[in-house]
């Protein structure tokens, strides 16, 4: 066979193979069976046994389970019913618990657990706090050198459990550590003196936001800071409305009426992008999201 013919035949065969691969791939994809959703399942062996079986690569496996937890978190939405959120919460907790069982010194996993596990609903119920506290107590034992462990535990104890003496003790212990910022000690003192104050909770959440270096963790803290800022604004509007009624005898018709009459210096900016509305009974609300109803000395979260 002449060389030119043989070369052309090889080139033609190559082109046919490339074309066939492209066509058959598309064809196979369109006729494929229903995709099976695969999720990482924690192996049914205890974490301390798995740690031995990593043959020296335990921190790499701990990273992997934390990364899985970070991927799981966005599946849980703020307005999700508890029965739908519960399996996600369980999986998140198991992944984070496994991560710190495999590498008990993994401070990033403890910090993420404190931010990601607790979540509250609009009707004052809160989920995952006890799981987060369980993981953080292990973090306190394993990383006594990290002030963030005691600080995070103190935040959960004060914000969700309203156990202010325990929270003040946790902050106090965190403040004693060498690298703890000065504000931790101040917060411990203020918390002991002014338990239940909304401003204290806001200061704590803002401090955690400033010190969170993981993106997913920052988002969780940012959400809490926004909710507390909104609550502060709503209380300010309601107090101004009460002063307005005491002076004028009637309730104001809007937030702008309060500003115009000098009872508010300016209309506060709603942190979620909505606006504040004053109701006919003098209560205030946001058009963007539900109000945080369970903060203060009188009202409490329902822990689940």
């Amino acid at each position, binding site marked *: 066979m002449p060389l030119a013919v043989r070369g052309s035949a090889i080139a033609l065969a190559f082109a046919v193979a490339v074309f066939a691969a492209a066509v058959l791939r598309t064809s196979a994809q369109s006729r494929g069976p229903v995709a099976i959703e695969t999720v990482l399942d924690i192996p049914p062996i205890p974490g301390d046994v798995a740690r*031995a079986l990593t043959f*020296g*690569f335990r*921190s790499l496996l701990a990273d992997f389970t934390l*990364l899985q937890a970070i991927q799981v978190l966005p599946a849980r939405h703020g307005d999700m019913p508890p029965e739908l959120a519960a399996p996600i919460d369980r999986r998140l907790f198991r992944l984070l618990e496994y991560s710190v069982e495999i590498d008990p010194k*993994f401070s*990033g996993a403890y910090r993420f657990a404190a931010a990601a596990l607790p979540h509250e609903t609009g009707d004052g119920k809160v989920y995952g706090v006890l799981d987060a506290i369980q993981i953080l107590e292990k973090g306190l034992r394993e990383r006594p050198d990290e002030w963030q462990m005691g600080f995070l535990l103190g935040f959960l104890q004060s914000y969700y459990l309203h156990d202010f003496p325990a929270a003040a003790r946790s902050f106090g212990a965190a403040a004693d550590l060498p690298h703890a910022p000065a504000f931790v000690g101040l917060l411990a003192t203020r918390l002991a003196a002014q338990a239940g104050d909304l401003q204290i909770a806001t200061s704590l959440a803002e401090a955690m936001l400033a010190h969170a*270096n*993981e993106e997913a*963790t920052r988002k969780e803290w940012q959400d809490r800071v926004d909710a507390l800022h909104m609550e502060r604004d709503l209380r300010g509007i309601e107090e101004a409305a009460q002063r307005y009624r005491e002076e004028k005898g009637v309730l104001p018709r809007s937030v702008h009426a309060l500003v115009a009459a000098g009872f508010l210096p300016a209309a506060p900016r709603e942190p979620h992008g909505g606006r504040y509305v004053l109701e006919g009974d003098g209560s205030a609300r946001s058009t963007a999201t539900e109000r945080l109803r369970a903060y203060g000395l009188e009202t409490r979260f329902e822990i689940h």
Partner: protein
Amino acid sequence: MSAVVAIAGNTVREFVRGKLLYNLLLFAALFVAGSLLVAQLTIGNWVRIILDMGLGAMEVAGVLLAIVIGVGIVAGEVQRKTILPTLAKPVPRWKFCAGRYAGLVLLLVVNAAVILAVLGLVLRLAGYSLGRTTLQAVALLCVEFAVLASVAVLFASFSTPILAGSYAFALFFIGHLLPDLRAFAEKSQSALGGNVARGFYLLLPDLELLNLKAHASNELPVAAAYVWRAAGYGTAYAAVVLAVAILIFSRRDLN
């Protein structure tokens, strides 16, 4: 001594010309560079991911080189009969073994240094730097490679390459499980069981003593006294194993 140095130099030259070293180095470098992407996809605290992936890649590449080349420099040469021209010269067998081993350890240290340089570069790109614990972890990884290379040479001194490689890999895995064997020995209700476990613990290399990867990624300080003692233990263990390998190899009938 000059014969040992000459054989070590030849060993380095031989494997620098080969493809295995470059393939593993490329794999490790890509793995370390890839850690930057993985870190970006996931959490803001990138240093841990980069260090875990970088030190993991360094260990995988180093262990593969130590065992595959360690077996090849003795058993491979015997199997291919390429050892005979060397031994026909006035070179004692112990010098051959020691020289080949020294060349391999030098190669492993250079390999670790190259991966460390890539790791340092990736960390710098991410805005971090190599910490003291990371350097201590790399130093002890080099000692681990030296131990595994001596084990590979020992098994290769009396066995075929495939069997020697299998034994050496098994010892790598067992070496990382030894703390559990020690715990078993301490907790065992049976005196005989405890003594047997204790005997195996003393006989086998405790590679977890040389594992500071988790400390490096958690940025935990490690006392220099510990590093020196662990490195001394590993070096002494490798020397004893190499001596046994030389003893066996010196008495082996190569015909």
